[in-house]
C-alpha cells in the first residue's frame, strides 16, 4: 500500500513536472533565458566590431575588412583565437584569486540582465521585481570586486595600481549614478496612476509610466496604431535631461570607458588589471565590460527613453493574435536594441573624441561637481512639487515647470563645469606646482634619493644614470 502511495505521489509529481515543463510560462522562460544569454554574448562581439568600424570611420581609415564581407567576421575569428589560446598565468600569482576573478567580474553582468524587459513578451519574471533599480545597482557595484581581485592577484605593480584606481573610481561614481536615478524615482511617485503617491522602482513599472500618456486624436485608427503605448512627450529625459546626462557620465566611469578609462589606461598602466591576463580569461573581462556597456545603455533607455515602446508595439500586441503579437514583440525588441545601440554609439563616439582624465581630476569631478548637482536636483524636484502641490496646481504644470528648470540646469551645468576646469587649471596650477616642486625638492635632496637600480646595487661607485 505504502509503495503504491509513493508511486501515486511520484506519478502526480511527474505529471506536474510534465505539465510545468510544457506550460507556456516555462516555455517563455526558456526562450527568454536563451535569447538574453545569447544577446549578452553576441552583443559584446557586435559591439567590439561596431566600435572598431565606427572608430575607423571617425578616424578616416577602413577598420577590419579582411575577414568575411567588410570584415564582419573579424570578431568571430578573434573569439575563436581567444578560445584556443593557452591559458597563461604568471609565476607567483595568487592562483585561486587569479583564476576566479574573471568569473566574479562577469557573473553580476549576466545576472543584471534578469530584470531588463526586452519586449512585452520577452520579459523574465524578474523584470516585475519591485526592487529593480536597487538590484541593478547592486549588481553593477559587485563588478569592482572582480577588478580588485584581478589587480591584487596578478602580482604586477601596474595591475595593482589599476585595480585600486578602479575600486576608487567605481565606488565614487556609484553615488552620483544612484542619486541621478532618484530624480526619476521621485517622478514616479508623482505620476502614480492610483493617485496614492506611491512610486515604483521596478523597471517595467517606470517604463510603463512613460507609455501611458494621452495622445492627440485618440480613437482615430491611424493615431491609435502609431501612438498607443508610444508617447515620446512623456519620456523622462524631457523632464530630467540633466539626470540622463549625469547618469550617462557615471555610466562611462562605471564601465571604465574613455574618458574615464584610467584603470586600464594603456599609456600609463600598460593594461591595468588586465595586464597579466590572456586567452579566454581576458575575454571574460572584455565580455563583462561590453555587457556592462549594454546594461548602462539599457537602463538609460528604460528609465529615460521609454524602453521598448515605439510605434505600433502596443497596438499589435493588443490584438491578441499570435502572428501580429509576434510582429509586435519583434518590433519592440528592435526599438529597444536600437535605443541601446544608439547609446552605445555615443560611448564609442566619446571614446574617439576625448583624452583621458587624471585620477585626482576624476575624483574631483565626482565628488565636487556630480554629487552636489544630483543632490541639488533632488531638492529642486521635491521642493518644486511641494510648492506647486500646496498651491493646488496640477501635475502637468509641475512636470512642464520641472522640465524647463532642468533644461536650464543642463546649460548651467555645462557652464559650471567649463568655468571650474578653466579656473582650476589656468590660473591656480602653475604657481602651485612650482611651490610643490620646491617643497618636494627640499624634502628629498635629489642626488641622495635617486633610486638605486637593482642590478647596480652591488656595484661600487656606479651612478644611477
Amino acid at each position, binding site marked *: 500500500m505504502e509503495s503504491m502511495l509513493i508511486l501515486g505521489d511520484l506519478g502526480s509529481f511527474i505529471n506536474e513536472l510534465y505539465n510545468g515543463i510544457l506550460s507556456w510560462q516555462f516555455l517563455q522562460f526558456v526562450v527568454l533565458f536563451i535569447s538574453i544569454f545569447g544577446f549578452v554574448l553576441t552583443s559584446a562581439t557586435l559591439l567590439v566590431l561596431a566600435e572598431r568600424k565606427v*572608430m575607423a570611420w*571617425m*578616424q*578616416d*581609415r577602413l577598420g577590419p575588412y579582411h575577414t568575411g564581407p567588410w570584415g564582419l567576421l573579424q570578431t568571430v575569428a578573434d573569439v575563436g583565437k581567444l578560445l584556443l589560446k593557452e591559458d597563461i598565468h604568471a609565476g*607567483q*600569482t*595568487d592562483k585561486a584569486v587569479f583564476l576566479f576573478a574573471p568569473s566574479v567580474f562577469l557573473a553580476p553582468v549576466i545576472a543584471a540582465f534578469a530584470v531588463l524587459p526586452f519586449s512585452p513578451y520577452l520579459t523574465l519574471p524578474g523584470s516585475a521585481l519591485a526592487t529593480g533599480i536597487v538590484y541593478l545597482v547592486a549588481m553593477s557595484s559587485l563588478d569592482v570586486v572582480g577588478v580588485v581581485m584581478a589587480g*591584487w*592577484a596578478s*602580482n604586477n*605593480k601596474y595591475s595593482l*595600481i589599476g585595480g585600486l584606481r578602479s575600486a576608487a573610481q567605481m565606488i565614487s561614481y556609484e553615488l552620483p549614478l544612484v542619486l541621478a536615478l532618484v530624480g526619476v524615482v521621485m517622478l514616479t511617485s508623482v505620476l502614480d496612476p492610483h493617485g496614492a503617491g506611491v512610486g515604483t522602482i521596478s523597471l517595467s513599472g517606470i517604463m510603463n509610466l512613460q507609455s501611458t500618456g494621452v495622445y492627440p486624436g485618440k480613437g482615430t485608427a491611424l493615431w491609435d496604431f502609431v501612438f498607443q503605448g508610444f508617447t515620446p512627450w512623456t519620456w523622462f529625459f524631457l523632464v530630467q535631461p540633466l539626470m540622463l546626462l549625469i547618469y550617462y557620465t557615471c555610466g562611462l566611469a562605471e564601465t571604465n570607458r*574613455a*574618458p574615464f*578609462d*584610467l584603470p586600464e*589606461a*594603456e*599609456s*600609463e598602466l*600598460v593594461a591595468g588589471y588586465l595586464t597579466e591576463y590572456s586567452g579566454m580569461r581576458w575575454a571574460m573581462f572584455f565580455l563583462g565590460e561590453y555587457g556592462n556597456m549594454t546594461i548602462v545603455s539599457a537602463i538609460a533607455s528604460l528609465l529615460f527613453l521609454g524602453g521598448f515602446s515605439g510605434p505600433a508595439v502596443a497596438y499589435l500586441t493588443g490584438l491578441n493574435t499570435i502572428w501580429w503579437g509576434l510582429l509586435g514583440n519583434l518590433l519592440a525588441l528592435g526599438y529597444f536594441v536600437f535605443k541601446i545601440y544608439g547609446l552605445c554609439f555615443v560611448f564609442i563616439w566619446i*571614446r*574617439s*573624441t*576625448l*583624452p*583621458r*582624465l*587624471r*585620477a585626482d*581630476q576624476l575624483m574631483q569631478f565626482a565628488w565636487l561637481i556630480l554629487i552636489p548637482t544630483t543632490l541639488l536636483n533632488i531638492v529642486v524636484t521635491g521642493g518644486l512639487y511641494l510648492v506647486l502641490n500646496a498651491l493646488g496646481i496640477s501635475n502637468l504644470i509641475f512636470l512642464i515647470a520641472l522640465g524647463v528648470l532642468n533644461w536650464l540646469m543642463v546649460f548651467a551645468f555645462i557652464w559650471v*563645469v*567649463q568655468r571650474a*576646469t*578653466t579656473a*582650476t*587649471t*589656468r590660473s*591656480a*596650477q*602653475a604657481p*602651485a*606646482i*612650482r611651490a*610643490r*616642486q620646491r*617643497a*618636494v*625638492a627640499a624634502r*628629498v635632496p*635629489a642626488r641622495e*634619493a*635617486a*633610486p638605486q*637600480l*637593482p642590478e647596480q*646595487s652591488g656595484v661600487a661607485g656606479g651612478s*644611477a*644614470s
Partner: protein
Amino acid sequence: MVANQNPGVFSELETSAEGIKTQEMLLNMGPQHPSTHGVLRLVMTLEGETVVNCTPVIGYLHRGIEKILENRTVMAGIRYMDNCDYLSPMLNETAYASAVEQLMDIEPPRRAQYIRLLVNEMQRIASHLVGIGTYLMDLGAVTPILWSFRDREGILSLFEALGGSRFNVNYMRVGGVLHDFPRGWLTECAAFLDRFEKNMDELGGLITGNEIFEARTQGVGYVDQQQAIAYGLTGPMLRASGIKWDLRVNRPYGAYREVPVNVMIRQEGDCFARYKVRFDEIFESIRLCRVAIERMPGGAICVRTPIALRPPRGETYFALESSKGELGIYFISDGSEYPWRAKVRGPSFVNLQILPELLRGHKMSDVIAILGSTDIVLGEVDR
C-alpha cells in the same frame, strides 16, 4: 599576502601621522612600455601615485652611429644620419651635409638651398605631427594620432616621389641635393599644403579647446626660463618657456638667410605651451613651404664635387634648427675620405635631462603627459 614583493625594491616602512604604515614603491616604466616612445626606461620611486624620484635609463637603442660614421666615407655617412632622429631624416642629412660643406667651404647653389628649405620644413611638419599625435595618444585620445599620421603620409609620399624612399630618403649630398623635382611635384606639393592646412584646422578644433586636454596639460611640467637655459634646452621646449631662440633666425643658414621666419613662443612653460608651440610651428612651416615654392630659383641643384670626397684637415661645428631643437654636428677631419670624428649633438638627448626635475612631485598620470611633451626620439638619444 602574496609572496610577491621582492624586499629589495621596497624601502623600509614609514609610519604616517595617522599611524598607517606606508612604503615607497619602485616602479620600472619601460623599456617595454606603450608610451615611452621607444625604449626609454624610467626607474621611478612612487609614494602612492606621486613620483618622489625618477631616473631615466637610456642606451637600449644604442647602435653606435657616431662610430659607424667614422668608418664610412663622408658621402656614405649621410645615409646613416637618417637613422639618428628617425622622425626627421631630412633634417639630419642636411645637418651632416652642411657640416661637411662648411669644412670644405662649399656653397650649395641657390636652388639646392631652397629645395633644402622646402624639404626641411616638410620634415619638420611630419615630425611635429608625430609628436602631437603620439602625445595625444598618451593622454588617451585615439583619434588625433590617426589624423596626423594620415597627413604625414602625404608628406612621405611626396618624399618618395622626390628621393625614391619614403623614410630614409638619403636625399642630401655634400654640395646640394641628389635629384631635381619630378614633373608636377611642386604643384602637387602646393595642393597638398592647401589640403593639409584645412586638416590642421580640424585637428586643432579637436584638440586645442578640449577641456580635458587643457586640464591635463596646463600648469603641468612647468619649466621656467632660468631652468630652461640652465639645462640647455632647445627647440619647442625652450620656446615654450618664453625664450626667443631659433637657429633659423639667430644663426641663419642656407636659404633662411633670405626667408625670414616667425619664431613661435609661449610664456607659460607648461606641457600645453609646448604642444601649442609645435602646433603653431606647423602653420609657420606651411607658410615657409609656400614661400619656397613661390621663390624657387632655377639653376643647378648640386655643385660638382670629387667622387672621393676628402674634406681638408680641420674641425667644424654646424648646427641647424631641427624639429626638436639644436641639431649640431661636430666634425673633425684628418684630410682622408673618412671623418676622424663626427659627434652628433642630439636635441632629444639634451632635452631629456630635465625630465627627473620635471617629474618630481607629480602624479603618475602626469609622467606620461610630461614625457610626451618633451617629444624625444630614442634613436637620437641613444644614437
